[in-house]
């Protein structure tokens, strides 16, 4: 098992003994080193490995013991052997307990015994050494294990700590989220600026050192307003001084500080200004704060997290405010309109109306409220508007008033089709009365101008009547007895008188009809030809000076008008034409039918060969009180009135004229039943 020689250090001053030793060890695998003193022995021990240290009797016990102690310290594995004739127990105890002696040899050395001793000692030393090594190894391993365990424990601890901290973080995070959600919810519940600002005020109170916010915004009416809270009191300041412009959130700007100080007349500490929105004069929210550095960063973080919901909710509130304002503005606008205005559905129910329409609503129906009628007002344009989808106008009578009703169809819900109309009622009672008076005046003037013609019209038949009467008187007196033939003749003569008298009566009736003030009547359907035919006899004598061509359309041209007004127009045009021809000329009156603009039109032209109208006057002839006639011939309202009448029924009046050649007036009116 021992492959190497046993290393033995022998300390001895006895050269003889050493020689003897060498001999006794001959043949034994021993590497023997001898030293004569302890100093050199110690030196050797320090540098070489030794398995057995032997001190012989040549030294004092004390020195030997010290050296062995040294050997124990420097080469603990080496087996320590002392040759001593030890006498006292104390020295032995010391050798065993302190030095850890392997053998105390007190006899002389027989070679065999010694050989055994050396080999045993060497063996012991090797055992001890290997045990020590194993121990060292074990202790090293233990140490490593300990380290490992320690590391593991640390890791576990670390991990546990991290898990705990992440749990804490999660809890923290969810707490923050809950806080944010609560804040957003509160913001969304705020419907007015005051509440909204209050919610933000409560929220920023979480950050120590922040004062209630100040909001600077523009109201829908365009007023610049700043709002804040002092305690629970809302403070509002309207100002014409616009707040400093800013593009993004900023903190600690003197400009903001000074501005607020001026507005609220108190010093302001540092201010964070946050623009909300990107309008030209954006809304700004200000936070006064008393901290700096890290706390400001925290606060700004806090704001960043909340800026989005703050902006969104403010947008909503301002929009609502705008809507409320606009709605109120519309309401006021409608109520300030003097004319009645109402929204009416297809069943004549009032949906909305202004104050002029009715102050005290009596039922759902429009006619009940406006006209105190249980049925629909005659002439109401609502049904026409609803069915055609286009606006329409007509006149109705309600109580003691005449309204021109403009009916505009509307879609209440986009794409839902036309279900309602907006009715605008223009009170034309006075206008109508004035207009009637004006027309009457014009008629009287016309009658005056026609006096000579009327006389002629009446004198003609009167001539016959009177003359024939004279003849008959003469005839009756000349012959008393009548033959049958004479009687027949007489009867025929009297019939002629009757006929002429009737014609005269008709002339007078026509004239009276024409000159009588017209009643306010409703629009009806009349034939344009008939109106023309009725008017011609009134001017017959005036027209007789001229060659007349009357060409009436074979078709009845039915138009929706007030016939006496259109008759007045026709009369005006004919009279103008007659008056324009100082010398006998040619008068052409014709009616016809034409199609344009998706409609069929009844057309009347009155053409004369008179003096014509100067181009410079053509633009003005339809203006009221413009006239080129003498005062006895016209008032200057004839054509303006004609235009008014024709346009009222959706028609047009136009003129083409050339000086000294003649003039053509054309009127067109939509034919009933041809609207698309």
């Amino acid at each position: 098992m021992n492959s190497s020689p046993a290393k033995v250090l022998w300390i001895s001053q006895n050269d003889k003994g050493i020689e003897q030793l060498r001999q006794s060890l001959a043949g034994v695998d021993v590497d023997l080193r001898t030293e004569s003193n302890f100093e050199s022995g110690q030196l050797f021990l320090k540098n070489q490995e030794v398995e057995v240290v032997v001190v012989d009797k040549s030294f004092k016990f004390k020195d030997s013991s010290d050296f062995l102690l040294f050997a124990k310290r420097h080469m603990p594995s080496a087996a320590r052997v002392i040759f001593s004739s030890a006498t006292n127990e104390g020295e032995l105890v010391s050798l065993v307990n302190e030095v850890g002696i392997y053998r105390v040899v007190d006899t002389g050395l027989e070679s065999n015994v010694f050989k055994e001793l050396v080999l045993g000692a060497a063996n012991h030393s090797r055992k001890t050494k290997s045990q020590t090594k194993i121990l060292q190894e074990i202790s090293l391993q233990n140490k490593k294990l300990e380290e490992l365990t320690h590391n593991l424990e640390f890791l576990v601890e670390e991990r546990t700590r991290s898990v705990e901290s992440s749990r804490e973080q999660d809890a923290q995070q969810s707490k923050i989220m809950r806080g944010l959600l609560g804040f957003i919810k509160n913001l969304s519940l705020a419907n007015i600026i005051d509440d909204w600002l209050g919610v933000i005020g409560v929220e920023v109170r979480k950050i120590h050192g922040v004062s209630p916010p100040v909001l600077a915004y523009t109201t829908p009416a365009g007023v610049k307003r700043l709002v804040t809270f002092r305690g629970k009191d809302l403070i509002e300041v309207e100002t014409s001084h616009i707040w400093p412009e800013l593009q993004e959130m900023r903190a600690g700007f003197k400009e903001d500080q000074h501005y607020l100080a001026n507005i609220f007349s108190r010093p302001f500490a540092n201010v964070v200004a946050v623009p909300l929105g990107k309008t030209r004069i954006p809304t700004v929210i200000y936070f006064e704060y008393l901290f700096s550095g890290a706390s400001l960063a925290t606060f700004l973080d806090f704001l960043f997290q909340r800026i989005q919901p703050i902006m969104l909710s403010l947008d909503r509130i301002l929009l609502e405010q705008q809507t409320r304002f606009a709605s109120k503005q519309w309401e006021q606008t409608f109520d300030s309109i003097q004319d009645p205005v109402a929204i009416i559905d297809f069943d004549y129910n009032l949906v909305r109306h202004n104050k002029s329409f009715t102050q005290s609503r009596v039922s759902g129906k429009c006619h009940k409220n406006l006209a105190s009628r249980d049925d629909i007002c005659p002439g109401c344009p609502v049904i026409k508007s609803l069915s055609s989808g286009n606006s329409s106008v007509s006149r109705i009578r309600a109580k003691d008033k005449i309204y021109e009703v403009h009916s505009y169809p509307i879609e209440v819900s986009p794409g839902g089709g036309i279900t309602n109309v907006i009715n605008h009622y223009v009170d034309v009672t006075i206008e109508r009365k004035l207009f009637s008076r004006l027309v009457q005046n014009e008629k009287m003037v016309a009658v005056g101008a026609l006096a000579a013609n009327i006389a002629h019209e009446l004198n003609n038949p009167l001539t016959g009547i009177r003359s024939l009467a004279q003849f008959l008187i003469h005839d009756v007196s000349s012959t008393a007895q009548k033959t049958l033939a004479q009687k027949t003749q007489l009867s025929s003569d009297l019939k002629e008188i009757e006929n002429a008298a009737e014609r005269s009566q008709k002339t007078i009736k026509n004239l009276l009809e024409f000159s009588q003030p017209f009643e306010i009547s409703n629009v009806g359907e009349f034939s344009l030809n008939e109106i023309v035919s009725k008017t011609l006899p009134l001017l017959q004598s005036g027209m007789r000076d001229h060659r007349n061509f009357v060409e009436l359309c074979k078709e009845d041209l039915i138009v929706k008008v007030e016939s006496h007004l259109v008759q007045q127009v026709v009369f005006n045009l004919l009279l103008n034409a007659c008056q324009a021809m100082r010398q006998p000329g040619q008068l052409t009156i014709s009616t016809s039918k034409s199609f344009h603009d998706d409609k069929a039109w009844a057309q009347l032209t009155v053409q004369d060969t008179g003096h014509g109208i100067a181009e410079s006057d053509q633009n003005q002839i339809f203006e009221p009180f413009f006239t080129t006639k003498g005062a006895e011939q016209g008032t200057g309202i004839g054509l303006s009135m004609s235009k008014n009448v024709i346009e009222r029924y959706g028609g047009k009046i136009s003129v083409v004229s050339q000086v000294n050649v003649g003039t053509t007036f054309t009127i067109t009116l939509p034919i009933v039943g041809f609207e698309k």
Partner: protein
Amino acid sequence: MKVLIVDDEPLVRYTLKRVLESLGDTVVLAVDGQQGLDAWLKVSPDLTFLDIIMPKLTGPEVLIELGNRKTGKVVMMSAFTGEQSQETAKQVGADDFIEKPFDDIFAVVKRAKELV
């Protein structure tokens, strides 16, 4: 005597015809200026009662149109009173002018016949 009556008023035509026929005259009637002109050229009347204001051709226009083809005497009549009508009648060569209505139909006829 051949008498032409040109008037658009039927009863005037009728009455003059009745009176003249009762006096033994031959009467031709025309209801407007154009008919009057045609009849005139056809019958060459000795005496014509001619109304001024008529359709198609007026009395004065008929005389102008006739020119020197005019025959007999012409009495112009009008329900348009005043000097204007009388003046017109004179200008176009009428022999007499009578306003309508007549005061006395017999006097009118007598005066006219005396012209011839």
